[in-house]
């Protein structure tokens, strides 16, 4: 059966396609994403407090390489059809990751009582930035024009990274007992908050319909196949790292996901000649709905086969 949070996404999608007057206050959307990011971070940090951190370092290297491989692959495919700037910018979206997709994956696993490693939220945080840098290099080469310092700062101290890593640090140092008093807000409300967040995502996705129709089949095909291939890479990486089936599923989900917040904002500044409508139509119009409706269960089915858990 479809998870209830996904039903909210479908409601938003239908309302948007029917051109309903339904709108969410933008500040509600911002507030929910703040709560979701902090909650994911807190939960991960709580888990990390119970294990040594040093052995994780090689895993971090591996998932960074995973993101870079995806970006290069996407660029190679997209370059056949699009101008260099557009190919590079879109590739960066696909190399990077989406918090919303990750949250739906976490929710999917929780609903089925499938565990995953606590370092997954760290993967989420560190996989965001490298594809952005690579995308800019692919688009522009190492030219004088790029203000790397500003870009670096915006990437590393962006909202998402700060909230995720900050939440992890708090969860890590407070531990389960310290976190108890704030659990009613961050943990008990997580799924309700995710539901409302996905309602808005449905409305946003619906707005991509026009652009998608204009761009045609190539983009739709790319938007479906790219995440599947990425998920396969992610599964390979996860199995190689020895993650549990839940962890492999979530790493595949991360790989399959494509950014629609941090990357578009940064690319708009760094590669202005790229058309943002193109990337967003693929990411939001195709890949995001594909992942949350069909991808995650499929990736878990694959993960379970290869990582040896029951599907």
């Amino acid at each position, binding site marked *: 059966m479809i998870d209830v949070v996904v039903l909210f996404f479908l409601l938003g999608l239908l309302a948007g396609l029917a051109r309903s007057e339904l709108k969410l206050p*933008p500040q509600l959307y911002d507030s929910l994403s703040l709560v979701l990011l902090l909650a994911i971070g807190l939960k991960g940090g709580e888990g990390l407090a119970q294990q040594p951190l040093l052995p994780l370092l090689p895993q971090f290297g591996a998932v960074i390489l995973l993101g870079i491989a995806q970006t290069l692959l996407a660029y190679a495919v997209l370059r056949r059809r699009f101008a260099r700037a557009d190919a590079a910018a879109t590739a960066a979206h696909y190399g990077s990751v989406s918090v919303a997709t990750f949250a739906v994956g976490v929710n999917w696993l929780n609903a089925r009582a499938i565990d995953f490693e606590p370092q997954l939220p760290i993967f989420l945080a560190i996989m965001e930035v490298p594809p952005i840098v690579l995308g800019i290099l692919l688009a522009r080469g190492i030219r004088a024009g790029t203000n790397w310092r500003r870009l670096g700062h915006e990437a590393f101290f962006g909202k998402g990274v700060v909230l995720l890593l900050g939440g992890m640090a708090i969860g890590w140092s407070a531990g389960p007992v310290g976190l108890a008093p704030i659990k009613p807000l961050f943990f008990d409300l997580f799924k309700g908050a995710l539901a409302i967040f996905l309602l808005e995502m449905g409305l*946003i996705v619906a707005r991509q319909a026009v652009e998608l129709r204009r761009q045609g089949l190539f983009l739709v095909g790319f938007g479906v196949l790219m995440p599947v291939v990425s998920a396969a890479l992610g599964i390979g990486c996860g199995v190689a790292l020895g993650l549990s089936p839940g962890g492999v599923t979530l790493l595949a989900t991360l790989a399959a996901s494509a950014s629609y917040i941090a990357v*578009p904002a940064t690319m*708009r*500044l760094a590669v*202005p000649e790229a058309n943002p409508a193109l990337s*967003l139509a693929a990411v939001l119009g195709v890949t995001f709905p594909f992942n949350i409706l069909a991808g995650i269960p499929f990736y878990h089915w694959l993960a379970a086969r290869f990582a040896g858990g029951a599907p």
Partner: protein
Amino acid sequence: MSSVSTDKRVMLTIVTESVIENALLADLDRLGARGYTVTDARGRGSRGVRDANWDEAANIRVEVICGRSLAETLLAHLQERYYANYAMVACLHEVEVLRPEKF
């Protein structure tokens, strides 16, 4: 005849994508603007509807009061740096101010 003595300056109004707010304001600074005012906006133009329903589709409206020559420098810079790739509209009109040394 005026009862208060005002001076002529120019008001430059820019409407553009809010994603470039920081970069644009840094440019205004660097080129010598002594101040500016920003409001959140939405709109429609040659780059389609920008309804501010989410960050990517939000506009800002920036006003700079300054001397005509600075306004023209700023306008030329906007044209060269932003017009090709960003949703942007800019225009000038004359205004009367007190304390002209401020602008």
